[in-house]
């Protein structure tokens, strides 16, 4: 199996430019630069690459929209604001293989005739900033970068992962989502056509350009080609990031790559795509992990972050903590999310504390139902769906919890 994202990860010097070059790095860029920008876009479109940030939008199409907009200057922004709880895949690229991202950005900047590139990096990743900045400096030194590429540090706001909020933040404002349309590909950073791609998405580009779209299409599933990084956390024997072809089943990821459930216990629940993705019960783990299949199983691939909960975990508490997260990260722009996430959290909190009442589960369903579909951006939908799906799959646990003070927690 080819590993082109983190293949070199066991090499302690993988982040060094010389090591990267040794492994064939920057040849894809050289090749791309010898091509017409339109042809680079054509190749990316042909590859079927889909955005790894969560929505799975075809990258080539996004590029084409921006390229077709007559306005200049254009911008390429790397979304390195990895904040989805359970997700730590981009951090691995940023810290251990930064050049694959930088090369990917350079390819994108060339393809889009962009004026500048920015990497919007989570404020909580100081290590990544250091390695990335060193890598950028080295890439300049070696003459690979013919455009300004800057790191812009976020400062602790999950919502900035949403692309229009990210642009607002990059412009020096509060990171609140913008009205769409216009979309960033037409009017993004300071009004210029702007492509925003996730770290992992951009990191796919060197392989696509070096090996060609045809080779790329042979990896993964037909609708979702390529490798995917799966960060696995929670109650597993070997948590970590695994680079596997799209469509690898959840079962294989948990039991083969992550070594199975910790201490041989039973699986109770799994979140397949970061905290915003609906939770799945154990009977759904044969789900192939790609954008299309996970949806069929009632959840979403999201960031591909697999969070595993073993038997004994209090899922009311998990749901409560998840809602607390959404409440904390709600930007406050729209009413249902601003007011509703906290309300859901407060109901969960009283259930968790043994003060739940008759009708609380129905109330939660109603409140979540009033949030879902009515918010400005997907954050509120995520919050509602987390609440609804925990209840949907684990209703009896919630019912049992009403009137029971559960202070026990599964620490395995």
């Amino acid at each position, binding site marked *: 199996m080819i590993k082109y994202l983190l293949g070199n990860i066991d090499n302690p010097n993988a982040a060094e430019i010389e090591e990267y070059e040794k492994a064939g790095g920057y040849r894809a860029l050289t090749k791309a630069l010898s091509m017409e920008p339109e042809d680079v876009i054509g190749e990316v479109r042909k590859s079927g690459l889909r955005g790894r940030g969560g929505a799975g939008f075809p990258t080539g199409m996004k590029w084409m929209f921006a390229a077709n907009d007559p306005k200049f200057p254009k911008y390429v922004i790397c979304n390195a604001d*990895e904040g989805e709880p359970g*997700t730590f895949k981009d*951090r691995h690229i940023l810290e251990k293989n930064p050049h694959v991202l930088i090369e990917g950005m350079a390819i994108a900047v060339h393809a889009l005739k962009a004026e500048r590139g920015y990497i919007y990096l989570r404020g909580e990743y100081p290590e990544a900033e250091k390695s990335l900045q060193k890598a950028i400096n080295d890439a300049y030194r070696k003459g690979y970068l013919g455009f300004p590429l800057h790191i812009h540090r976020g400062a*602790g*706001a999950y919502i900035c992962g949403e692309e229009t909020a990210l642009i607002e933040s990059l412009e020096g404002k509060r990171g609140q989502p913008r009205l769409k349309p216009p979309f960033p590909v037409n009017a993004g950073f300071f009004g210029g056509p702007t492509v925003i791609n996730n770290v992992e998405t951009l990191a796919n580009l060197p392989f696509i350009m070096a090996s060609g779209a045809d080779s790329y299409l042979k990896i993964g599933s037909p609708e979702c080609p390529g490798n995917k990084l799966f960060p696995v956390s929670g109650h597993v024997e070997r948590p970590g990031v695994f680079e596997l072809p799209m469509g690898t089943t959840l079962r294989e990821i948990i039991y083969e790559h992550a070594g199975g459930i910790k201490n041989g216990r039973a699986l109770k629940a799994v979140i397949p795509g970061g905290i915003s993705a609906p939770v799945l019960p154990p009977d759904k783990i044969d789900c192939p992990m790609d954008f299309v299949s996970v949806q069929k199983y009632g959840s979403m691939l999201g960031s591909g972050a697999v969070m595993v909960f073993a038997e004994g975990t209090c899922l009311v508490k998990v749901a409560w903590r998840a809602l607390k997260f959404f409440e904390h990260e709600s930007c406050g722009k729209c009413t249902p999310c601003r007011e509703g996430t906290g309300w859901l959290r407060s109901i969960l909190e009283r259930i968790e504390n043994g003060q739940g009442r008759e009708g609380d589960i129905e109330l939660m369903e109603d409140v979540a139902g009033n949030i879902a579909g009515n918010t400005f951006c997907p954050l509120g939908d995520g919050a509602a769906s987390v609440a609804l799906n925990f209840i949907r799959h684990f209703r009896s646990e919630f019912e049992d919890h009403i009137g029971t003070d559960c202070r026990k927690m599964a620490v395995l």
Partner: protein
Amino acid sequence: MSPAPSAEKPLAGLEEIKKNYPASSAALMPALYEARRQFGWLSPEALSAVADALNLPKAAVRSTASFYGMFNQGKTGRHLVRICTNVACMVLGAGSVLEKLEARYGLTPGGTSRDGRFSLAVTECIGACDKGPAMLVDDDMHTDLTGERITEVLERYE
């Protein structure tokens, strides 16, 4: 975190940072980082200095700063401890780590130890879920925390 800004030219380095953006207003976040470094925290004086340096309205600077968790902090102790309590770290025992901090240093979320050595903030996911519970002490990441390990780590900070 360094105390008192140099008296004469606060935020002098901003001219270079401004060049990274098409408009100087976009330099606000890096400017806030710089001001936090120079002033120790984003006091009203620090925010005013940023506003002056970037020719932005003070209220807008404050509004933006307050949006971001890392800027919306009062004065902190010498070291800022940010412990992740999100789901992955929670199920791996972040709660007991917090209990230890309170017992050992009298630290509660949002508080500062009496000796001014540590301030504690609970934080959302910091991307170390595979090695939780995890924390950042200033800019250093520490993982696989337990009640014992955390005191061992913190004792390295004066």
